[in-house]
């Protein structure tokens, strides 16, 4: 009897406890006004916690909702159009760029003028500012401001990539930043507390590691935005963002291919598929001695059944690459296609004397991709390479460890990598990874590719400022890559975003580094 009483007491306590917790667990009510919440900085194009566009290596989708560059890629990333420059012209000498500026105001009401352009470019060019543009803007000789709405940039030598670099340089307000000493700018709290831009949304607040909130900028020159608030929620990984999307808490996020698949055929969501503009390749460390013989590199290509991997593991959502490019205008017709042929791979290895070069000793194969899909893809390639007698051991590292290793000179630590490099929209992007003059620490040629013919082809293509003639120059680069295999080119995969069907006129594309591209955030709308 007594014991039973005691049991009841315990039960009652537990029940009361459960009831209190259930009562308080009512979700907060929705806000008045229209709000779009998204995971705008999820995935490889995002950069959570960075608010300084001069130090951004990604995250431009979000930065572009409040900052704007002079020129910007259009929404299919095919060409540069004006943003804060209403028109821009290049002089006959290929050195003088004239920008006519739009008539607009900063979020604090001050007018945007050519002085801001001069200030921004000089700041970006100044390595003291801690920005990442100094080397890329090194050719800028002078910036003239004949009037409030005109800026003239003079280069010291022709540079075909200049405009596309400008596409990443967000204009900054001189009146707000000029008081801060240049060396202090990078760590100023201005960026994450009260930045002002000219874009359709203005910064409200950043709650550290949780979200960033924006409010509509009523005075936006493209019209008042349709929604009142825009919120960028932070996620530790893409899977959590997908969970929040499915729970209806956010309306947009980047998604891993496998997760994107689960939304197909679901009327409540729209899946956006786009070219990643990143070519994946097997990197052969040219200093390590294993890959000197072209036949070995060819054998690697023939050993891998790329078609099977693309159709099964990528679900068809990747384009085979036989050089660094897949864009039709850059890929010449007569390329070797390195079909899957394990016997040929074995023969090539035998001719090259692979037994003596390495035999079946394990070769460490590094990557910085930590996604389940890449783990599967690499496991598949490992099995295929094992069939022909190349014993590779995949090893996924975090980004800093990967960079720390491949930028060092301990060749034995990275005989082989699985990596990606942006190959578009501007084909010149690959130059830093392949040009013999771009070896670290100068450039990003981490595989130490030193092929004079390829370097020459790249230099010629880089120097060509006439767009009409450029394609054929890049075709030569492609052909050279295809024949000499500085890398083992694999494919260009698609990337995905998933959008709630509640969103109207929302535009996003998986551009490298998140853009910037014309996305018209002021037109984004959400159904109640």
């Amino acid at each position, binding site marked *: 009897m007594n014991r039973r009483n005691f049991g009841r007491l315990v039960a009652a306590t537990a029940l009361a406890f459960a009831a209190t917790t259930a009562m308080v667990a009512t979700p907060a009510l929705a806000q008045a006004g229209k709000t779009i919440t998204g995971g705008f900085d999820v995935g490889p194009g995002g950069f959570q916690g960075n608010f300084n566009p001069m130090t951004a290596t990604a995250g431009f989708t979000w930065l572009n909702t409040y900052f704007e560059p002079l020129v910007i890629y259009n929404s299919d990333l095919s060409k540069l159009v004006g943003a804060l420059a209403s028109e821009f012209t290049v002089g006959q000498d290929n050195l003088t760029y004239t920008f006519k500026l739009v008539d607009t105001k900063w979020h604090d009401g001050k007018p945007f003028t050519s002085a801001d352009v001069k200030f921004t470019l000089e700041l970006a060019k100044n390595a003291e500012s801690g920005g990442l543009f100094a080397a890329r803007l090194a050719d800028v000789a002078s910036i003239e401001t004949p009037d409030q709405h005109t800026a003239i940039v003079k280069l010291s030598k022709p540079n075909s990539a200049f405009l596309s670099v400008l596409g990443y340089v967000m204009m900054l307000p001189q009146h707000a930043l000029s008081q801060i000493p240049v060396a202090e700018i990078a760590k100023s709290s201005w960026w994450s507390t009260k930045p002002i831009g000219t874009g359709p949304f203005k910064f409200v607040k950043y709650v550290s590691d949780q979200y960033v909130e924006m409010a509509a900028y009523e005075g936006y020159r493209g019209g008042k935005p349709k929604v009142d608030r825009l919120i960028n929620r932070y996620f530790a990984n893409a899977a959590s963002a997908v969970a929040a999307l499915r729970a209806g808490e956010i309306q947009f996020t980047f998604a891993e291919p496998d997760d994107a698949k*689960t939304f197909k055929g679901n009327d409540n969501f729209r899946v956006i598929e786009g070219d990643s503009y990143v070519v994946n390749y097997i990197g052969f460390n040219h200093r390590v001695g294993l890959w000197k013989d072209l036949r070995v590199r060819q054998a690697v290509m023939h050993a891998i059944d790329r078609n099977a991997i693309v159709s099964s593991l990528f679900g068809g959502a990747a384009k085979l690459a036989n050089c660094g490019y897949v864009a039709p205008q850059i890929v010449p017709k007569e390329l070797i296609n390195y079909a899957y042929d394990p016997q040929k791979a074995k023969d090539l290895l035998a001719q090259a004397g692979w037994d003596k070069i390495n035999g079946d000793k394990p070769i460490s194969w590094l990557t910085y991709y930590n996604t*389940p899909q890449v783990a599967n893809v690499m496991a598949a390639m490992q099995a295929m390479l094992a069939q022909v007698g190349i014993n590779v051991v995949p090893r996924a590292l975090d980004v800093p460890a990967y960079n720390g290793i491949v930028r060092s000179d301990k060749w034995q630590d990275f005989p082989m990598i699985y990596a990606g490099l942006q190959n578009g929209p501007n084909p010149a992007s690959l130059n830093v990874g392949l040009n013999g003059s771009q070896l670290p620490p100068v450039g990003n040629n981490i595989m130490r590719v030193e092929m004079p013919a390829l370097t020459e082809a790249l230099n010629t293509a880089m120097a060509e400022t006439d767009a009409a003639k450029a394609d054929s120059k890049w075709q030569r680069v492609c052909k050279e890559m295809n024949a000499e295999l500085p890398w083992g080119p694999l494919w260009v995969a698609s990337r995905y975003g998933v959008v709630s069907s509640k969103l109207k006129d929302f535009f996003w594309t998986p551009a490298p580094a998140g853009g910037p591209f014309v996305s018209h955030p002021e037109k984004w709308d959400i159904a109640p």
Partner: protein
Amino acid sequence: MASLIRTGSAGPIRRALSRFFENGAAVAGLAILVPILLLTFTYDLWWPYKPNDIDLLAMNRGPSSAHWLGSDGVGRDIMARLLQGGRISLLVATVSMVVSTFIGFFIGAIAGFAGRLVDGATMRFVDLAMTLPPVIFLLVLASIVGSGILPTIFVISLLSWPVLSRMVRARLLELRERDFVVASRGMGAGLWHLLIRHGLPNTIDILVVYATLQVASGILLEAGLSFLGLGVMPPEASWGNMLNAARATNVLENYPWQWMFPGGALVLTVLAINFVGDGLRDAFDPRSELK
């Protein structure tokens, strides 16, 4: 076995064993554990698939007569990976248990026997090891030594020994001033002799229990490391990295066999080891006879 245990004036270990075998949960734990060990260590003799054989034509298949437990994202047989993964997980857990028990015992015993000064210094060292935030220690250590089977063993061992040292030292401190220890010291016995002849027998109960439970927590730690992207690297199978597949909503939802089986195997094994460890603790605890 049973008759052997019950005969005459049994020693403490024998009495403990007999108590252990009277504990239902502990015996159940053994009954679960033994078949798991058998299956894991013999599977390549009787199971046709190899854990790393890919089959791109049979990806993400559910359980069938060909693949009893289905196949994974590159068409590898889950059954083969489950058993190979078990082998690796148990190997990692067991070896790291041996290493950490070894370190833990010796450091604790030296602190307990070697006098005040050494004791103080050693224990502050142990405190320091405990002060390191596990998160940072794990992540940093794993990125220094790399990921793989050996580094995982290294990380788990280094993370686990301080607790044991403290327990061993506490037990031996009481012993230090006892007559027989003082006497053997007076007769010029070396530290080594003290450790083996007096330290070991007097802490054997702590060691056995710690070792058992450490295997369980080693398995869990390996799984946790894999979740953080450290630990045993795919394509080598381990229960941890198989479970990691559940991170993708797609797998969690559509291919449950890919994580449920390793998850189930892991929980079951850890559970069984915990049962055994608990049984051992009760068996070695003299007070449990009173109950």
